[in-house]
């Protein structure tokens, strides 16, 4: 098992500013959770990493220095607080935004030197490394607030009522390379799985 230590402020160096800046407040608001014991750094995510047929389990230890984050985005604390208190009409976007931020972290840790160049919303994958038509390459992200591994398995494999993300991605003939990045806040769990090729 490898322990990956990552300081969130490093994300500004590893990925483009525009992709990072709007996800950081969500990560800061979402990751610590509600209970006091979970709110101290480093925040540890068990990470199941699958490449081809090989699956290994690691740990991601996430930290941040709010002062350094504020140097990049002076509004980060204020925005995180608003998101944490949930007094917004669109709070369901919190998990999604945080999952985007954590996926950028996972890309930076597990796929060194790969940088996101574009982003999808309505169709998978969310983050793109290559936008060549019919040879798309990227990472699909999803976040769940609770449910742990069970919730993440349901996202990947699907349920009797809903097709899983893995099957959806495999059905797409326009995607050449794609991974699945799933995150759960309580209990903490994460998956990074190469679905194609």
């Amino acid at each position: 098992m490898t322990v990956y230590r990552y300081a969130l402020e490093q994300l500004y160096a590893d990925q483009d500013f525009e992709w990072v800046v709007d996800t950081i407040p969500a990560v800061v608001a979402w990751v610590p959770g509600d209970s006091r014991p979970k709110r101290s750094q480093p925040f540890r995510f068990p990470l199941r990493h699958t490449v081809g047929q090989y699956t290994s389990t690691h740990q991601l230890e996430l930290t941040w220095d709010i002062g350094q984050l504020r140097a990049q985005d002076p509004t980060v604390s204020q925005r995180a607080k608003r998101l944490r208190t949930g007094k917004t009409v669109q709070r369901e976007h919190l998990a999604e935004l945080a999952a985007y931020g954590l996926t950028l972290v996972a890309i930076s840790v597990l796929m060194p030197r790969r940088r996101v160049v574009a982003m999808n919303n309505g169709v998978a994958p969310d983050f793109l490394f290559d936008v060549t038509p019919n040879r798309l390459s990227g990472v699909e992200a999803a976040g769940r607030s609770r449910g742990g591994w069970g919730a993440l398995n349901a996202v990947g494999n699907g349920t009797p009522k809903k097709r899983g993300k893995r099957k959806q991605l495999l059905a797409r003939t326009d995607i050449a390379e794609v991974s699945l990045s799933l995150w759960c806040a309580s209990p903490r769990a994460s998956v990074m799985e190469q679905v194609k090729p």
Partner: protein
Amino acid sequence: MNLDVYASARATSGKLKLKAKARLADGRPAEVFDACVLLHEAARAEQRAIRLVDAPQETRFAALVEACFCFVEGLDPHAAGRVYSRLYQEREGMSDELAASLLSRLTPRYESLQEKYAVAVGGLVALGGGLPMVTTTIPQVQRAQREAKRMTSAFPGVAGWWWVAYRIAESRAEAKRAWNALTCARRLEPDNARFEAISLLAATKALEYEAANEYIGAVRARIDSSHPELCLMYALAELRLARARPRNRKQRWTRALDVVRTGLSGEPDSTLRNNLRATQLLLESYIDQRKPSLELLYRAGLTEVAIGAPAETDIQDLLMRGIASRVRANDDMEDAA
């Protein structure tokens, strides 16, 4: 295929979407409206990206799904519906499995938005038919205003409802409120020539003289014969400013006359041509220091405006009121949106 340009257009759209999501998560009405504006822009960037390359069918389809999703998230059921309809045309020949995968995220969100919108529209009384075609009693107009506010709060991405809010405020002579509503419509649809044209006249009512002058000055350089309505409204705006500060009025009249002639050299429809012609005759009489009379309205074919007007009426006011009432009579949601 120019992939660099394509990639750049897609990256622009992606960044806009991410910014929009952060604003949606913030939740305050102003932030949500900003998010709607960003998502509309992202949808346009998505459609632009696909026009830049000779893309395969799957890519075109995926870009349309993205654009539709942006409009759904941007709370605009009208624009989303238009793109959704194109998706039906584009999917012909595609495998069902691939189309289902591409649509899996969009369809539930799209249907939920349309359902909410249908409920909201079903609850309208004063605006049930779309727009208040003829404003009658004050309570009716007030009710229409309340309903327009409800629609712009629930669906801030629909430019058409901001246009409705503008028309109502304008009919009540609430210049500032009208300007704010029109500005929202314009931010959502910056390429809408009618919004831009009307905004010229609205600026002269709502803004201070200097600000209005600066606003119409910024538009002047872009005026050409392909937008006769813009030419007409520009000329009317210059007329209003000339009356507000008579010192440079001859310069303003001459500039306005040039623009009116530009508008007439295009291909305006008959109503617009009559309005432009009347404005031209009015400006020529001002420049020649002749007192304008009702005769110019008859000569321009604006008989309905001239009939019933007292002989000593102010022709400029009469013409402006006549043009405004025609804009009102031609209003509908589809025109606006």
